[in-house]
């Protein structure tokens, strides 16, 4: 289900690297934008009641698969700069938790709803389920890791804002995207 990308030619490698770089860049930019726009909703620097980058995570893995995961990993790692200095192993794990679970969630939901690999025929409702599943898995695994690292149940309190933030953030981006698409490309009228 989560097989590594097949061996391909140089142009595929180039596509992979370009996709990865674009995702890393967009993820970091949206993260900064989120911190600026929703500073009142923030719990910590990485937990907010509205977390727009969650949408980037979902879209990146749905569109680019492993290239999206790699981009998210690099983007997350760069945002964990100060953590990396003091807890490098923890930073590597947390960056993994910000990227891989999104692909797992996407693949599981894709199978569950029998969505084609090219995403053809996917409904809006299914897209929302992708967002909720990604948010749930990512928040759940982050919380479990934090609880394990702290050897305490205190991090469990962070699960709700993380999950709500991821879900809300994904919904906001999806609906804004839908709004823009409808404005720019209005559906063709049938005569």
């Amino acid at each position, binding site marked *: 289900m989560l097989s590594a990308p097949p061996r391909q030619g140089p142009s595929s490698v180039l596509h992979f690297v370009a996709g990865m770089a674009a995702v890393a860049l967009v993820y970091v930019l949206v993260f900064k934008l989120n911190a600026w726009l929703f500073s009142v909703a923030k719990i910590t*620097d990485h937990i907010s009641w509205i977390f727009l980058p969650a949408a980037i995570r979902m879209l990146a893995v749905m569109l680019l698969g492993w290239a999206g995961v790699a981009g998210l990993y690099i983007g997350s790692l760069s945002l964990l700069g*100060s*953590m990396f*200095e003091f807890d490098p192993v923890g930073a590597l794990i*947390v960056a993994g938790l910000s990227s891989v679970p999104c692909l797992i969630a996407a693949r599981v939901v894709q199978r569950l709803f029998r969505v084609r690999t090219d995403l053809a025929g996917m409904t809006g409702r299914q897209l929302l389920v992708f967002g909720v599943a990604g948010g749930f898995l990512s928040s759940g695994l982050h919380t479990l890791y934090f609880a394990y690292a702290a050897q305490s149940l205190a991090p469990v309190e962070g699960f709700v804002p993380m999950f709500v933030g991821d879900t809300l953030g994904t919904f906001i981006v999806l609906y804004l995207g839908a709004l823009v698409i409808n404005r720019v490309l209005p559906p063709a009228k049938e005569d």
Partner: protein
Amino acid sequence: MPSNKKESSLLYFKFLNLVAATRRLPGIPEIDAVEDRILAFLARSWYAGERISVVEAMNGMPEISPTTVQRRLKALRFKGLLQVENDQQDNRLKYVQPTELSMRYFAALGQCMRKAQAD
């Protein structure tokens, strides 16, 4: 120079010399001017009872670049002059805390002030 000003200057020079001597005391790790500046910045927050995160410390001193602060925080931690604690909810968030040694260092500086005034 009026004697009042002269006395004040003398007091200050005595203080500087005492601080320099204190820094050479056994058990006190060597710290440079940048580390001293960072410690002073942190000490003000600690004294006010504030918790200061690594990121806040990195961005709190406009005269020192965030990367330098980050590197020096790591060095100060290595020297035992500060410790880093995780946030209870989110272990990505790290707080900088004083140690026994940093408190001893601040106390030694305080003694320098008293000594300079008393002599």
